[in-house]
């Protein structure tokens, strides 16, 4: 199925009817409070939307919505529940993904406490870049402001700093990654650990 910007895949505290295996684009896990939202994690083609089902939880307190247009394969949650009961080898892989996603969201907590807006922006752009083909990331500052939990001026200034260093180019509504290597240097220890843990866990096979 096609996934379009802002499409809600899982609503907070509502029964999860479907899980979505992402093929393109990415989905945000966000804590939503009235009009504001803060991003906790990103799910792209490396993962699935609906990890609570794998853990035998049919609801989540968080909102899962499409942050970048894409595609996904949908499966009824009830069907997945049968599959994980009957096929432990599949369940094991999905449980390891659940752990990888948990490490990623813990990483978000770490950087929010520890790092500057520039570093957090660099991490976030790298995570988006990982999940897209090409170097253009379609995003407004308004949206980044929500995702990073910082007033828009803070995001605009951080973008200006990264652009001034030649790491990205920012045009209205699009950020282009110019120098990924140096962006990773800028992100420092804010980026890389969850990605390495994902690779390690997924390499374990069934």
């Amino acid at each position: 199925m096609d996934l379009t910007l802002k499409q809600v895949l899982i609503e907070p505290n509502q029964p999860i009817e479907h899980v979505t295996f992402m093929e393109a684009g990415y989905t945000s896990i966000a804590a939503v409070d009235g009009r504001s939202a803060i991003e906790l994690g990103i799910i792209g083609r490396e993962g699935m939307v609906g990890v609570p089902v794998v853990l035998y939880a049919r609801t989540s307190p968080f909102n899962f919505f499409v942050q970048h247009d894409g595609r996904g394969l949908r499966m009824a949650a009830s069907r997945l529940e049968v599959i994980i009961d009957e096929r432990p080898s599949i369940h094991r892989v999905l449980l390891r993904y659940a752990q990888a996603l948990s490490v990623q969201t813990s990483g978000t907590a770490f950087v929010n406490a520890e790092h500057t807006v520039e570093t957090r922006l660099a991490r976030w752009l790298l995570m988006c870049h990982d999940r897209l083909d090409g170097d253009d990331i379609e995003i407004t500052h308004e949206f980044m402001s929500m995702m990073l939990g910082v007033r828009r001026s803070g995001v605009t200034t951080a973008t200006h700093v990264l652009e001034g260093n030649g790491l990205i180019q920012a045009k209205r509504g699009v950020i282009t990654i110019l120098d990924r290597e140096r962006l990773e240097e800028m992100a420092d220890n804010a980026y890389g650990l969850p990605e390495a843990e994902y690779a390690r866990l997924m390499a374990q096979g069934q």
Partner: protein
Amino acid sequence: MPRYFLHLQYREGPDGLAVDEEGDEVTSPDALREHVEQTARDLMRGARLGAIPDWRTCTFEVTDEAGKLVLTLPFAEVADARL
């Protein structure tokens, strides 16, 4: 609602101006100053930027949709008012 653009002068010189291309909608021109002051307070309270060791050195240059400068707000004014 009128839209205003909050450009942030965070370092001296033209390279130190972060240009706001998106803007904020503000209910009325009368509400503008309060909106800009609140934004400055939120930034000082919650945004940690490597490029800005001291928010009190920053200034908002606010323009309207025609590009006319309508308000200049040094963060120091807002910071001092809190003391």
